[in-house]
């Protein structure tokens, strides 16, 4: 799975890493139980401070996407026991997106079609 990070983005790097991994889990590019690189290896590969990667991993662990143990390192969780509800922050982001689409003149049908496409893309994988 390829992580794409925007150097000039307003979104902090740790958040970008977290978002990319969540997307990877969602669309199946990262399989349940798949091993992720260590904090140091990923930091070296991207060329950033290992604290940044550590922060991203901590967040993912807190949210229940990954698990860490000393023997197996970092892995994607086998099963996700999460409430089937988006967190407040994500809801806010969605609200922003809908607003932006409305302002740009994207119709509700077009927007929903896009959502459906992204949603089903993950399920197909």
């Amino acid at each position, binding site marked *: 799975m390829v992580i794409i990070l925007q*150097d000039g983005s307003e979104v902090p790097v740790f958040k970008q890493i977290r978002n990319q991994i969540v997307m*990877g889990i969602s669309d199946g590019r990262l399989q349940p139980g798949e091993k992720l690189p260590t904090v140091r*290896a*990923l930091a*070296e590969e991207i060329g950033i401070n290992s604290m940044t990667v550590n922060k991203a991993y901590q967040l993912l662990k807190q949210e229940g996407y990954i698990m860490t143990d000393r023997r197996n390192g970092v892995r994607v969780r086998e099963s996700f026991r999460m409430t089937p509800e988006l967190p407040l922050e994500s809801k806010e982001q969605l609200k922003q997106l809908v607003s932006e689409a409305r302002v740009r003149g994207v119709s509700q049908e077009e927007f929903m079609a896009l959502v459906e496409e992204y949603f089903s893309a993950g399920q197909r994988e």
Partner: protein
Amino acid sequence: MNWTVMILLLCLYPAILFVYFFVKMGATPKKGVYFGVTLTSELAKEQKVKAVTESYHKEMKKWLLGILLMPLPAMFIPWASVWDLYFLLWIGVSAVAFFVPFAVANHRLKTWKLEQGFVTNAEPVIYTELKQAGAIRRVKWFHFAPQAMISVIAFVAAFLIHKQQGNQLLLLMTGTFSCITFLYWLVAIWMDRQKTMAVSTDSDVNVNYARAKKNLWKNFWVACSHVHMIYIVVQGYFLLKRSNITLSIWVLAILYTVAVLVLLFWMLRKKAGLDKRYEDKMDILRQDTDDYYLWGLIYYNPHDKHTMVESRNGMGTDTNLATPVGKGVVVLIAALALHVLILAVSGVVQEFTPIHLQVEEGYVVASHTNEYRIALHSIKEAQLLTEWPKMTRNHGWNTDTLVKGSFRLKEEKKDCEVMGYDYNTLFLRIDTSWGTFVFSGVDDEETKQVYEIIMKE
């Protein structure tokens, strides 16, 4: 013109042609990059690009002709040190000159691109393959262990021989080159740990490509270390035998350079083949990072923390000079160049400083850029020689004119200090309880006078 000059030219002319074709190959458009400028496929079809390319090829031919002719006036220089300095400047000019037409073409295309309303730099995007982060390592300890072991054995042997027989050159050269074996190992490990670019959205493609590329580099460094090991052993043999030392150093240095160049060429050809095989699978396009390439050649990107990155022009890799290691490389190269230049200039100073041999206040004084003072009463024996004794250099100068430094007398197997002109026909040998000296004055007359004074005293 002596044989060293011939060997030098024989070695340097092919090297210059190699650099010429290598630089020209680097100017071949690669993934939409023309002379270090990223162009869209529409822009690349424009007449301007064709005109810049044609002008580049013409300029390259002119520079090649100039560089090939440059050493010819040096044939008429009678002074060895000036000749060395001139040749050093020639090598320096040759190393830079072929990149001038590239830089000019880069500037013309970049200016034109801006005039067309394009920017020359986009926000940098970092692509990272999660599966290959820290996972692809091709260099293992056993790839270099035998070479390292042989180097250590050679060094220990040289040390013991030096202790027994006093062979300083053998110890110095074997020691230095043994260290270089470990340097090969370190560079191989360092390159193996460099980030590999994600070239595709398909993870398998990224992993296989990275693995194949790292394998190529590993094979290159291992092969180089084998060549190096052979060099240490063969050079050690000649230094041990103390026969044809200068000739063997030259010939082996040339063979070594040629072997490494051949290996480099072989590796780059393989790399080009690998890129070609993966060309269709590479769906991540290169970013427009024109401004991070000074003159289209030197990569300086403070946003990129990686030192080695995929080469933008031609084959191989580029070094990011904005990283601490990159800066270190610049300092090292500058220091090496400066060191060689200082050596060459000091050679001129040595050659043009006259030697004086005289007796003053009870001392034989041989002066040049340094001075020897030998008390007359400490002289055990003085001889006037009509030719240089048979000797090999430990360290110092041994040019067509000046012979100076520490040498080893072949027949007597002992060291002596030497200061004289090679073209003289009379030489003064002085033996004391604390050492042996061979001098000549500025001319034979001066040498003879000093000898006579010593004999009188």
